[in-house]
């Protein structure tokens, strides 16, 4: 739980580099008025719109908020454990639980567009190719650090989601809570190929073993990311 303060984006935000100005932590404002950070969201190529994983926003019954970056550049030192954050309210625009994607509108972001973004999908990227992601791992422990991850595509899979086969790719990396909704880019490009949704968890294991807050059955280098092609239809 983090105490919120509401404020418009600082002017320096406009001058921020790509990662810091386009990738945010997203959360909800709970009934006690504190912010619960949930996952990662990123700016889209239309004014004021951002995207994340649908499970990050739940059923949208709480106030959804986007937490503003507190750095200008990803090379700056970040304060890992924050007691206070600046946030803006976001409203749900599109929701697709089958493909685990959601689009949100942040009215204050209306002047901002992620001009260079090219939303494609997983069809034209191959196994073994390099991808880059930015996200906020360990948000569950109150740690808000925008972090870059470099990994390779390990496999392309159909992941059955409620009787529909959904195109996913497997990344050879260990993801952590808070990274859901993180954008996955083809390396050295602005081509969005997928959105991070979670990690492989073996079926029918019954009880998950939780040690120190970590679900051991999901601690694998098998990270699932849904193809960005499904996002294109949503906004």
């Amino acid at each position: 739980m983090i105490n919120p303060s509401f404020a418009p984006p600082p002017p320096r935000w406009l001058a921020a580099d790509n990662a810091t100005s386009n990738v945010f932590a997203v959360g909800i404002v709970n009934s006690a008025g504190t912010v619960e950070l949930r996952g990662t969201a990123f700016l889209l190529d239309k004014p004021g719109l951002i995207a994340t994983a649908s499970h990050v926003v739940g059923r949208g019954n709480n106030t959804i908020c986007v937490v503003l970056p507190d750095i200008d550049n990803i090379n700056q030192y970040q304060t890992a454990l924050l007691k206070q954050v600046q946030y803006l309210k976001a409203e749900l625009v599109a929701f697709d639980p089958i493909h685990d994607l959601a689009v949100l509108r942040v009215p204050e972001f209306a002047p901002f567009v992620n001009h260079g973004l090219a939303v494609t999908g997983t069809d034209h990227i191959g196994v073994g190719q390099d991808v880059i992601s930015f996200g906020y791992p360990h948000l569950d422990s109150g740690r808000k650090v925008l972090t870059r991850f470099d990994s390779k595509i390990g496999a392309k899979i159909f992941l059955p989601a409620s009787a529909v086969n959904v195109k996913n790719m497997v990344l050879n990396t260990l993801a952590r809570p808070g990274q859901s909704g993180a954008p996955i880019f083809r390396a050295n490009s602005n081509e969005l190929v997928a959105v991070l949704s979670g990690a492989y968890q073996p079926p029918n294991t019954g009880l998950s073993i939780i040690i120190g807050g970590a679900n051991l059955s999901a601690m694998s280098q098998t990270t699932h990311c849904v193809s960005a092609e499904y996002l294109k239809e949503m906004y």
Partner: protein
Amino acid sequence: MNSIMSFLEASEPDNWIAALPSYQRNTILEMRARGASYEDIASTWIAAGASNTAPFSTGGPPQPDPGFLEKLRGEIRAYLCGDKKYDKDRKQLIAGGKEIHAFFISGMSVGIAPFVGASSIVIAPLIALMLATIGKVSLNAWCANS
């Protein structure tokens, strides 16, 4: 009320699905092609999630809420069958005068959302699916049987 009744009775079940945005409509049509009923799809939709995937939002996986759909069904019934708490919403829907399915779904979703604890965007496809299950029956008969 009469205008809502006549509109519902004149609507084909598929009209409600056709009124949804393409990203929802196409998925629902894919499920229909695999033999799922509207009712099945509504149940599936609300419990959706990729198989064998532990979601990595800090809230963890969405918690199952088997009563949610029944609660929503009850509110749709209340809305359509004349419950006083929806008087204002029904009047607005009729005053809108747009007997188009998308307007109808949107109006109902906005009215019902606060009573089921979910965003209108989240419940809109579920409302469309449930209206499709009602089909072209007489609203009076449907309300009497509910």
